[in-house]
């Protein structure tokens, strides 16, 4: 059984990333369930998608302390869901800072030591600048695919199948861009 948590801020493309991993599960002959929350929580709020892959999956939701990997699209969001990670789990973080409204208004402060804390607390923490890599690949919209490339290598997913899953999930006209982003993400870790 593999438990994956994808976290980020509404609008960052976390849903597509979960679709690709779901496709990967099917292509590799596994059962899969995905749980996500739509609606009010999407308006710039925290977003998490749960994904479980295995021979037979019951719960669509990953539970605290059980995630094999967390793919976090924003640094603070990584800290928010870190407790879902199991002891030797992998935490892949896109080093991007998006201020939540309470930090914009001054009601709260965006902590400046998030990365240091995560690095100290999580042995399997890995930070990449996925947005910059995506821009090099051709578009910052491919940030999610860069992240998938990186997690593919870190976790040891089958690269060929994952690439096939990426191609199956992105629009045909952006295939080359996304394959490129995927490979650059793969090589970045």
């Amino acid at each position: 059984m593999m438990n994956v948590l994808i976290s980020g801020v509404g609008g960052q493309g976390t849903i597509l990333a979960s679709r690709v991993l779901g496709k990967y599960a099917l292509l590799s002959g596994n059962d899969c369930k995905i749980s996500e929350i739509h609606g009010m929580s999407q308006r710039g709020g925290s977003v998490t998608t749960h994904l479980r892959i295995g021979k037979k999956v019951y719960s669509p939701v990953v539970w605290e302390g059980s995630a094999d990997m967390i793919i976090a699209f924003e640094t603070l969001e990584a800290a928010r869901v870190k407790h879902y990670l199991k002891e030797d789990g992998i935490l892949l973080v896109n080093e991007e800072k998006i201020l939540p409204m309470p930090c914009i208004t001054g009601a709260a402060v965006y902590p400046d030591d998030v990365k240091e804390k995560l690095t100290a607390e999580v042995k399997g923490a890995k930070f990449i600048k996925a947005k910059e890599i995506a821009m090099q690949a051709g578009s910052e919209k491919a940030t999610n695919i860069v992240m998938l490339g990186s997690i593919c290598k870190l976790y040891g997913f089958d690269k060929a199948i994952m690439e096939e899953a990426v191609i199956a999930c992105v629009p045909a006209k952006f295939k080359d861009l996304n394959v490129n982003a995927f490979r650059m993400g793969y090589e970045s870790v």
Partner: protein
Amino acid sequence: MQKKELMLTNQAIARGAWEAGVRVLSAYPGTPSTEIAENFVKLDGVYAEWAPNEKVAVEVAVGAAVAGARAMACMKHVGVNVAADPLFTVAYTGVGGGLVIVVADDPGMHSSQNEQDSRYYARSSHIPMLEPSNAQEAKEFTKLAFAWSEQFDTPVFLRETTRVAHSHGVVELLDREERPLKAYEKNAQKYVMMPANAIKRHVIVEEREKAIAKYVETCGVNFAEYTSEKEMGIVCSGVVYEYVKEALPQANVFKVGSVYPLPVESIRAFSKKVARLVVIEELEPYIEDTLKAQGIACEGKNLFSIQGELSVAKLLQVFENKQIPVPAQVPVRPPVMCAGCPHRGVFYVLNKLKLTVNGDIGCYTLGAVAPLSAVDTCVCMGASVGMAHGFKKATEGKSNNVAVIGDSTFLHSGVTGLINAVYNQSGITLIILDNSTTGMTGHQQHPATGKTLDGNPAPVVLLDELCKACGVKHLQIVDAYDVVAVEKAVKEATANPEVSVIIAQRPCALLDKKLKKPAVKVTDCKNCGKCMKLGCPAISKGEKGIVIDTAQCVGCEVCVQVCPFGCIKKEGE
């Protein structure tokens, strides 16, 4: 080989309806039910529509079913409150073609105003209710619900919760069963519910209910799974079954598929084979209370809260005494109005004028959140107008309040409140935030957008003409981005002793592709903080004054108008 697909449960329900030969679907958008209609309309050979509200949606489906088609209506839990009137009586008339009502509950209130439990509706309306646990089962139960509906001549509820509705699972795809339209036969005793007929139908309802209660004991939709242990027996349904299978693999499990009627005798037999019977259910102790009333001893809400969702971790905590890792303390990231949201300027003005704001259901409920903090009340769809009227009547017209409602919500159930305000002369001010869409649920069409669910052109219900037809004499139309015009209009309207309506127009910023470019720059910021009161996610404090994030800014220029020193300028000025 059968075709399999990873599918959202709501999509699987749409697929199940299609496979069951459903011809007509009517719905009003509501999280977490919206995607059923959106996916159904994409399938071949069907008719699907957005109705202005859930009551209309059910009535449309009832009409289609009586006319001989298989028909469906879909809604979120609170939508059933709106639709309850036809539902309680169609339980009496029964159907022609099969009729299924999908209701999506929202434990944990991810996107709702309450945590009501729709299972009680099944019991009180005498309508059977099926509850699937996952996407594949949702598709199967949808088809089963239609079979039951025709077998027992009754509408059938299909209930899901957010975690089922918005989960993906692997679903097997089958072909559509073609269901020719049944011939309609006039039968006033069955379909005209006046006392003389309804009294006779009520007898049939009771007989039918007994027949279904017997049927659910043996039909296979409910089943027990025994392990080698004799200690623990769990009764559960829906997503909780999945949690139980994950957390307590050693437990004996009774999986309930028909939450109404419950298979009481089967559960009684199950209870006798285990030492300890525990009902695990989200929301109310619905199954637990039913079993206890039938003399079946069990535990339930002594172990779990009626609030929020359950989870594998909560089960492990209760039964295995496991410690659940707790989240780190980090600043919260609540949902906010988007950059360029046309509601922002209106709320800025209402806050500035220190008005009491009776709000409503939609993205604009977020006007209650700091720093705008403009909204005072939010209860249900359409309540803004009725409540504003009530405020005025309670204070003999002295209250300084306005009602704020979206275009889709106004058509849903705000217009009746407006008719009341005109008729009973409260002199309220109603601001219709017309963003040309149903925003919060993800941009659905409605009667004033000019398009139907399938994207085809439709006649437009003109909001201004509608208000005038309701008897509104004082109507102003303003650009929601024009802060000065909005303020002027609100001052005029609130000073007027008669009912006034302001329609603040601007398409949702996520829809209006015409702007989509940052049009503001900051020079010599004085750090006065005025623009920060807008709560725009594109504006933040930098080292030398405010900074505008050009990636987020869409150029609405509300901040340009709000800055008292002219430090924020349009691009090129």
